[in-house]
């Protein structure tokens, strides 16, 4: 289950030229003829038929520079940085796009090759408005590294300084500066292939070629879902997130402001990468200390509202099931879809607006927290909510858009003031001279305390589902999850397969616990039922599930489906450290599941702080009156037409 499902060539809309090479002989690697010999720089190796030269070189430990190539994307072979000499061929070949189907002799750094690579990098530099000092990607820029690697010491073919494009800041989430674009088209392949949103394409031709949106409209006016996956795969600073750090510093410096930050689970599993740690090094408690050093007044764990989300969303699900199964209500809008991924939510609003009723009305943990801070927390500490600034540390660029949705003001104020990404926070730490990995540990602040393991796993695909199941199983069946699943690890919903489908028969039911007494009398109506759930991550997979539902396929029979906009879920979010790859995301997920295991309390409905919130503040239990006002929301049918 840990091979991330790649794009399916059948449904991909990538031009054929950019689809992966399909060589059918791979099935049995040892079959006669399925292996082929290559010699690379004098070293010999046998590889399966169809392996690219680049992959074969990797196996031998031979480094070939690349730019347009990306582990998550189909090959394009268009930057030509990776060219090598293939014996018997006049022209150099792009190693990333050359499938080996017969024995080859390859040289990777002859004079011809070195000259060509150097020229190509020179040409890219001549097209690129390079302002390294002032660039968000300085020191993390693939073009910069290539220039260094190629030993570039001058601009042989000049350097572009005049600006031909206006920086597009229309989006709350993604900023596009096409003057820095080197046309590797990784964003195009990300948006069309990996995400199937289809906002960006190469337009015009020849030296006029640019990456554009439909009719070159501002990003804020097209069907962009703000997932930021393009940012994560941009080799330069052409794409970046809309950065609020200046404003946040200003609030921190203002003694009249009470600045609180909530931190989502995925950033802590990744931020170490910005400080040289290996992917998957957890930084939860170092980060708490660092945030305080930065000057944040309180540091909260978003997992608190993740648990709250589970209770609200889980209750909503049980109510929908009740409506459907007991009252025979056909409008119960099942399957219920999760709504905590703002990229996914906007995707649905654009492309499947008819299914808005299926979205859980529960807000995302980020937005719930904002509302709770500016109401409950303000009351508790006798603070004027207008003096509170809420910052949300998120792995996500779409969260910036989400907190700016006009309806997200249920506290009477903007519930969340700023969405801050992992990368931006790392930058703040660096600016403050904070050496994150070597800080002492410290815990989250009260009154929300430490959360549960269920909250933490929200950060990986399948996590919301697992958390919900832990609670639903216990609440309904009256048994410990641990009796059904070892350590409460619901393995079937984990992993990186693009779409997972799981059935859970409910064999017995238990008594209704006090928290739900106001909603149902008993669970008998669920006895013998089979709960059908599914998980999909990356909107390309979401699209497959949605199309299946539309066609009345098996996913339409589901009761609950977790959708995450980004591949891998939040750990692969558009605000996470760059680079990203299936291996990096798997390492981050491992950190998350490790943290889950380390918690004593691992189920949302057992979170004492959440129970206290219901008791002292929300009063009526999940889905009660105040919950509805503060913790639930509505959506906008946007459609896909661009006026």
């Amino acid at each position, binding site marked *: 289950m840990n091979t991330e499902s790649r794009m399916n060539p059948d449904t991909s809309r990538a031009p*054929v030229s950019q689809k992966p*090479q399909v060589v059918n002989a791979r099935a049995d690697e040892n079959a006669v003829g399925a292996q082929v010999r290559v010699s690379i720089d004098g070293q010999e190796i046998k590889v399966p038929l169809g392996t690219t030269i680049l992959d074969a070189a990797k196996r031998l430990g031979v480094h070939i520079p690349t730019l347009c190539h990306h582990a998550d994307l189909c090959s394009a072979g268009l930057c030509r940085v990776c060219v090598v000499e293939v014996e018997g061929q006049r022209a150099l070949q*792009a190693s990333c796009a050359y499938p080996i189907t017969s024995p080859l002799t390859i040289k990777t750094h002859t004079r*011809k090759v070195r000259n*060509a690579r150097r020229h190509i990098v020179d*040409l890219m530099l001549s097209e690129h408005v390079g302002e390294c000092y002032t660039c968000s990607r300085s020191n993390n820029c693939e073009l910069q590294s290539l220039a260094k690697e190629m030993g570039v010491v001058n601009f042989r073919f000049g350097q572009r300084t005049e600006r031909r494009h206006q920086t597009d800041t229309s989006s709350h989430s993604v900023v596009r500066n096409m003057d820095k674009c080197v046309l590797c088209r990784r964003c195009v392949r990300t948006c069309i292939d990996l995400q199937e949103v289809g906002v960006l394409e190469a337009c015009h*031709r*020849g*030296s006029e070629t640019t990456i554009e949106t439909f009719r070159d409209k501002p990003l804020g006016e097209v069907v962009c879902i703000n997932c930021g996956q393009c940012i994560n795969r941009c080799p330069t600073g052409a794409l970046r997130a809309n950065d609020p750090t200046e404003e946040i510093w200003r609030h921190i410096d203002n003694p009249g402001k009470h600045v609180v930050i909530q931190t989502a689970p995925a950033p802590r599993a990744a931020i170490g990468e910005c400080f040289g740690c290996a992917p998957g090094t957890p930084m939860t408690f170092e980060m708490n200390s660092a945030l305080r050093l930065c000057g944040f007044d309180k540091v909260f764990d978003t997992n608190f509202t993740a648990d709250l989300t589970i209770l609200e969303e889980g209750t909503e699900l049980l109510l929908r099931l009740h409506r459907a199964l007991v009252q025979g209500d056909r409008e119960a809008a099942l399957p219920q879809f999760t709504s905590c991924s703002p990229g996914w939510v906007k995707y649905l609003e654009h492309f499947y607006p008819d299914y808005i009723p299926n979205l859980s009305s529960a807000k995302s943990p980020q937005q719930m927290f904002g509302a709770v801070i500016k109401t409950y927390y303000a009351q508790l500490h006798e603070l004027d909510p207008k003096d509170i600034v809420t910052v949300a540390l998120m792995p996500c660029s779409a969260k910036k858009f989400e907190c700016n949705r006009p309806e997200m003001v249920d506290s009477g104020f903007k519930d969340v003031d700023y969405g801050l990404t992992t990368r931006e926070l790392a930058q703040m730490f660096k600016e403050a001279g904070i050496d994150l990995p070597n800080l002492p540990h410290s815990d989250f602040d009260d009154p929300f305390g430490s959360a549960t393991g269920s909250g933490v796993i929200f950060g990986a695909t399948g996590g919301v589902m697992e958390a919900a199941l832990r609670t639903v199983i216990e609440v309904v069946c009256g048994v410990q999850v641990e009796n059904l699943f070892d350590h409460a690890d619901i393995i079937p919903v984990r992993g990186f397969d693009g779409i997972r489908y799981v059935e859970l028969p409910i064999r017995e039911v238990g008594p209704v616990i006090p928290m739900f007494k106001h909603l149902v009398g008993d669970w008998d109506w669920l006895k013998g039922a089979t709960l059908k759930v599914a998980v999909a991550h990356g909107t390309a997979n979401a699209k497959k599930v949605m199309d299946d539902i539309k066609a009345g396929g098996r996913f339409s029979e589901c009761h609950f489906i977790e959708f995450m906009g980004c591949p891998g879920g939040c750990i692969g979010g558009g605000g996470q450290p760059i680079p990203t790859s299936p291996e990096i995301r798997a390492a981050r997920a491992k950190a998350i599941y490790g943290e889950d295991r380390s918690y004593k309390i691992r189920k949302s409905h057992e979170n004492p702080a959440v129970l206290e919130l219901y008791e002292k503040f929300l009063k009526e239990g999940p889905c009660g009156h105040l919950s509805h006002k503060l913790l639930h929301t509505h959506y906008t049918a946007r459609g896909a037409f661009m006026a």
Partner: protein
Amino acid sequence: MSLKDHSSILFRESRPDEGLRKAVGMKRVDIITAVRESGLKGRGGAGFPTGVKWNFAALAQDTVKYVVCNADEGEPGTFKDRVLLSEKADLVLEGMAIAGRAIGAREGIIYLRGEYDFMRRHLEQVIASREAAHLLGESILGLDGFDFTVRVHMGAGAYVCGEETALIESLEGHRGEPRNRPPFPVNTGYLGHPTCVNNVETLALAARVIALGAEAFAKVGPASSTGTKLFSVSGDCARPGVYEFPMGISIEDLLREVGGEEAKAVQVGGASGTCVPRKAFTRRLAFDDASTGGSIIVFGPGRDMLRVARNFMEFFDEESCGQCTPCRSGNRVLLEGIGKLEQGCCSLSHLQELQALGETMQLASKCGLGQSSPNAFLSIVEHFKDEILARQGA
């Protein structure tokens, strides 16, 4: 039309559909063998042996295959396919049907450049009348299972779509951006099926090969470049037009025929070809010497060769598909370099840098466009260095 009937193969009087009639009686493999033995090489520019290409396509395992007639004719100075299609459409369609039979394809597509829209109706009429005469359609000439239909697909103004994989992308409704190879179109082409892309002239000649026999064809021209070739001649000469000459004719002889004896240089192979100076006019027009898809542009004594180079580079700067770095960006840099040369402010070392860049473009570009776009610049700089450097400040 200024076509000369020397030892003509294409334009000599012949019985209609002789090749097709013979092909119906031949085994598929024998058709391919005949084409291979004739030595016929592709007339679209690359000069790949047609019989070998057909054989690859025939061997490819698939129930659906395509024959594509490349009528995108966009190389500056080339117009022979226009003449061939307007005057010998039947012969081209005959060649397509033979190719279809040889490789086992039932569908043919003529990719006609947008500029030639005026020929579309004519072609469709010829197709219709051939269908009525059982020379296309089902059971051609009564042969059970020999089904072959042809449709015309219009280009929309893009030179690069003449490159065969770009052409296929275009047929599939994409931007005309060349693909990575392998896989080659004969294995994975239009809609993923084996596709044999041939030039208009190649297909017409193939029909004549079957009609005349491989031997008769191979007797014309030198061994490396058998048969005749259509030349599109334009520029500073008295009699521009399309000429059919045996392969291997020298530039000198050709210039005499067309009234261009005064020429100071000849561009062989269009913008992507090379510029041959007067002192090399003894060179022969053949695949192993001065190779051309048919374009011959004559430059008279008074021509400014830098202006010529600029004109070609402007062409490529616009017509590059824009996907790969060496071509997209390299053409622009060379064009800027020509600007500097014109202004007399290009240092010798920068000129050398540009020449080296040209070589990289030839080696590292993704497709034939970028691999050949610096040719004109490089050959003009090489042969007319004095003329060019005379302008420089020094």
